[in-house]
């Protein structure tokens, strides 16, 4: 961390404050934006978009992934679509969503969710393909109800795959949310960065970007990792 800041100082000396303002200047800009409430508002709006589109993509991706992993017919029908979506550039999906649905919140959220959906689906499908048949049979013989089965037999087997999808998904989603905001939303971190870009205000760009990275780091450390630790507590750890 200290090394990073030191390198930043040196870089700023070499490149000049216009190309790369030093950490103090960026910190000061962050402080002014925070005091006016603009920073918190932009962060809040962007985080809400991240949360909604992430939830939609994960929920749909899980259902779709399990169906494709378990039923060959679903896999054969949906696989070509998945390949198309996986390879369609994010920008194309965003632009088309805005053209077809207008510059609306719905279009923005849908575009982000659609970008994340295929990779959640593919990851969960791998999980569903590796379901343990022996545990399935055990659940059959002991006549477990469908809720018990889902909660205690199937979801725990899916957990590592869900965690992987969530990890990669969160980072992907927030990057795309910023682009969506830049292209067609009147607020949020992406919008602010867009304005700063037009004014060539590198200090502001860094101020917003760093604030957002800090928030995402906090989510990873205080939310994602504790959940993962809890879910994998049964795994024997090397002493």
């Amino acid at each position, binding site marked *: 961390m200290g090394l990073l800041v030191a390198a930043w100082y040196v870089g700023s000396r070499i490149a000049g404050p216009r190309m790369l303002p030093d950490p103090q200047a960026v910190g000061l800009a962050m402080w002014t934006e925070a005091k006016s409430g603009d920073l918190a508002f932009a962060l809040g709006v962007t985080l809400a978009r991240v949360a909604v589109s992430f939830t939609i993509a994960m929920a749909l991706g899980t259902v779709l992934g399990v169906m494709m992993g378990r039923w060959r017919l679903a896999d054969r029908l949906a696989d070509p679509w998945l390949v198309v979506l996986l390879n369609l550039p994010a920008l194309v999906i965003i632009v088309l969503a805005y053209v077809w649905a207008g510059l609306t919140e719905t279009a923005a959220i849908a575009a982000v969710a659609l970008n994340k959906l295929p990779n959640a689906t593919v990851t969960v499908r791998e999980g569903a393909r590796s379901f343990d048949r*022996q*545990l399935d*049979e*055990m659940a*059959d*013989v*002991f*006549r*477990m109800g469908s809720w*018990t089965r889902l909660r*205690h*037999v199937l979801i*725990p087997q899916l*957990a590592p795959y869900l965690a992987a999808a969530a990890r990669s998904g969160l980072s992907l989603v927030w990057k795309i949310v910023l682009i969506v905001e830049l292209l067609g939303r009147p607020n949020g971190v992406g919008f602010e960065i867009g304005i700063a870009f037009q004014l060539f205000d590198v200090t502001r760009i860094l101020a917003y970007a760093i604030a957002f990275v800090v928030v995402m780091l906090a989510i990873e450390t205080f939310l994602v990792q504790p959940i993962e630790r809890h879910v994998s507590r*049964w*795994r*024997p750890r090397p002493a």
Partner: protein
Amino acid sequence: MSPAGVPAQLDVSIESKSYRAASGGRLDVLRGLKFALPAGAVAALVGPSGCGKTTLLRIITGLDRDFSGVVNLPEHGKLGMVFQEPRLLPWRTVEQNVRLGAPEATDADLDMLFAALGLDSHREHFPGELSLGQARRVALARAFAVKPDLLVLDEPFVSLDDALAERLRDELAALVTSRRVTTLLVTHNIDEAIGLADRLFLLSSSPTRVVAEVPIARPRGLHSVNERAEIRAEIAQRLGKAV
């Protein structure tokens, strides 16, 4: 033990069960296999390895419905099963595993079972923290906790060392005796069968059928070396006659 007229707890009559072989033909695994168990009986199916015992158990437990014939279980019959592998949920504790298999078991039931099987101190452990012998005990506890109408055991003690297998066998014998559970045990270990069952069904090699029924005079009693030898001789004779 079971007076005449008591309806059979388990009635198996399988005309045939076959698999499609890789070469395209049909491979008969079971053919004309029949036997019945009265309530409270403990039977062991003994046969050469690879004779389709596991297939037979899958049919009886309803996991495999692709066969011709009839399997009659008591209506709404509850099944307790111990598979060859313990098949516990690794992400649930020992106690949760038993409760999930047997949601109707009371705390008192579990206390008794855990005490009888020496699992008291392992209730909160995860299966990954247990030895194979302990995991097998948990699987036994789960099967008994169901209070099954039929208890099915598929080679429950393979790959344990002899001393441990012996101890577990004694614990199982005690449980079976005290609870009067109708039990079907599959094994290729004749001593194990003699030690646990009150009758043996001898199976032929594939396509499998029951070739003889051998009653055991004093089930789960201490058999002397001579008695065991006699039973073994009888088995050998019957198998010889059948072939």
